């Protein structure tokens, strides 16, 4: 949920080197008076990516892989990144209603919804409320429900270094992240994202006690993807999602921590694309 923060410079540079092939556009759209920062890339069916608690600190290689097959939308949630603050949005349930307004505002239909961590929780909250514009749901290590006796990690007490180390399986990967300095603008954005994460995830810690009982309403094809070594949201939670979602497939990504789309980007992108392509039109 955190930690992806530092993935900044080199991925961004990589993206700009390949700019001609893989350019993404960034613009503001207004929903309920809130100016939302929205990145877009690719063409075809709409895929909406909902970010986790660390926000979107850079355009990721994973996004390029998805946008080769889909019209990919990557917004910043209210209070995160470059999107306005909106204190009246006070819970993940509120955030879900806000995104239903966003889907209407942009008149998006047949959307493949993808979310990581907090964004996975958000995708589930959207889907239990209204599936009319959703054709599939993909959850990457989602928050939102928990298994008693299998506690999550405490990213709010972790040091900045632990926040990076504990979301990656491969510590060499974590060390490369830690070696990248953040400039002042990035540090401010990371702080903003941390405020947003606190608002939604502090108490109860990373779940909504009223979500699990409604997951049967997500009748569209669903795909739960989890790293096999997730120290933030336990890998074991994937079994409960599989059990509660009526139409779900489970994919375990080996040698992977809490951010499958970052640490195992190719494999995760392939799993996402294969799944959405297999969903009947």
């Amino acid at each position, binding site marked *: 949920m955190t930690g992806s923060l530092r993935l900044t410079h080199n991925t961004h540079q990589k993206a700009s080197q390949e700019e001609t092939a893989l350019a993404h556009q960034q613009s503001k759209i207004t929903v309920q008076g809130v100016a939302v920062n929205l990145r877009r890339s690719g063409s075809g069916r709409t895929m909406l990516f909902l970010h986790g608690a660390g926000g979107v600190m850079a355009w990721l290689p994973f996004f390029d892989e998805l946008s080769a097959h889909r019209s990919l939308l990557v917004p910043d949630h209210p209070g995160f990144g470059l999107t306005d603050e909106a204190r009246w949005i006070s819970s993940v349930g509120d955030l879900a209603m806000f995104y239903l307004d966003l889907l209407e505002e942009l008149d998006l239909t047949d959307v493949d919804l993808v979310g990581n961590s907090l964004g996975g929780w958000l995708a589930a909250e959207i889907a239990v409320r209204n599936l009319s514009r959703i054709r599939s749901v993909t959850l990457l290590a989602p928050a939102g429900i928990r298994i008693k006796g299998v506690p999550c990690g405490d990213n*709010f*007490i*972790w*040091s*900045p270094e632990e926040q990076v180390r504990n979301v990656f399986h491969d510590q060499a990967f974590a060390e490369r992240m830690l070696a990248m300095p953040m400039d*002042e603008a990035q*540090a*401010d954005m990371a*702080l*903003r994202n*941390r*405020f947003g*994460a*606190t*608002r939604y995830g*502090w*108490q*109860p*810690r990373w779940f909504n006690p009223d979500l699990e009982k409604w997951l049967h309403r997500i009748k569209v094809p669903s795909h739960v993807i989890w790293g096999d070594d997730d120290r933030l949201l336990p890998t074991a939670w994937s079994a409960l999602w599989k059990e509660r979602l009526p139409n779900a497939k489970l994919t375990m990504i080996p040698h992977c921590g809490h951010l499958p789309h970052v640490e195992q980007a190719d494999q995760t992108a392939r799993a996402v694309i294969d799944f959405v392509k297999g969903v009947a039109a």
Partner: protein
Amino acid sequence: MKFVAFHLMPYRPLDLVAAAKHRSSWVVLPNSMYDPEKGASEYESYISSLAHAETLGFDVIAVNEHHQTAYGLMPAPNLVASALIQRTKRAKIAIIGRALPLINNPLNIAEETAMLDNMSRGRIIQGFVRGIGSEYHASGVNPYHSHDRFHEAHDLIIRAWSEPGPFEFEGDHYNYKYVNVWPRTYQRPHPPIWIPSQGSSETVIWAADPARRYPFLVTFAPSESVSRYHLAYREQARKFGYEALGEQLGWAAPIYIADTDEQAMAEAGEAAETLFNNFLRMPWEMLIPPGYMSMSSMQNFMRLRSSLGTQPKRSAADLVASGTAIIGSPATVRRKIQEMHDRTGFEILVSMLQFGTLNDELTARNHERFAAEVMPYFRK
């Protein structure tokens, strides 16, 4: 000047070496490190010491609230206040303060204080605080709502004390069909309110508001910050159209007196270091969870430090040089208090005469010398 004998009630038998292996002396320090036999003796000696402060001539005896820590053994300060009521006759008893956002039913605070105010026939002073950052980890309360919960709980409690009940309270965080606190407070409309703070311009504006005029106590801060906040309060009062009284300005500091400056440092320097380096030790993630400070305050704070790692260690010499602690001969201590008084006109001195590992014998002597060699010089 009003003299306050203040206590944190630290757990002195703490194994400091073993404690240093944990992330903090708060929240995650295993409570297996607390020995009830030793702890019971701590309570006994601390409560006796505070009760004796009345005999020594202190105007106010003060307790406070902290949770899940060896830094202070008063998660329920009203229990100690209640014991002190039974052992004193004249001194005011200040509870500085109750951590409003951490309590899910603020009417509990209104009720308990009202009881204490009756039991003491109007000797209670009520402090309100937001708690220290780590207490949001300890309580589970979301720090994002810290300010909002503080203000709403404050408004509720003041109304519960001062308006006839029952009435209905409709808030964002707290809602009651019936607010009707029995007993009513002994002091009308309610006990005096004090606001301890580490210093924050938002809190200065709020406390100085003409509707409140709450005394503002700057706690454990370098003397430069203390005078800056006192003067900011005075300036704010002028903006509101009135002149703040010295009784609205307070300073809370660890104080120690011996024959000479050198002797005072030799006896209490290490104890002062343990207060800051051992008992108060916690990483920034615990001290300032998101929302505890506003985003802009936190950005400024982060820019002052290259990274949010562990807090730097403080030496006794630094603590004294910065004026965070006052340690010295009677003349030195008097001079430092006088200097602050000359700069800001403050009239409430919250003296913490036991701190860190300072033992009973030195603590008792410190109280006596402070009462005999400092207080009389500032009595009008």
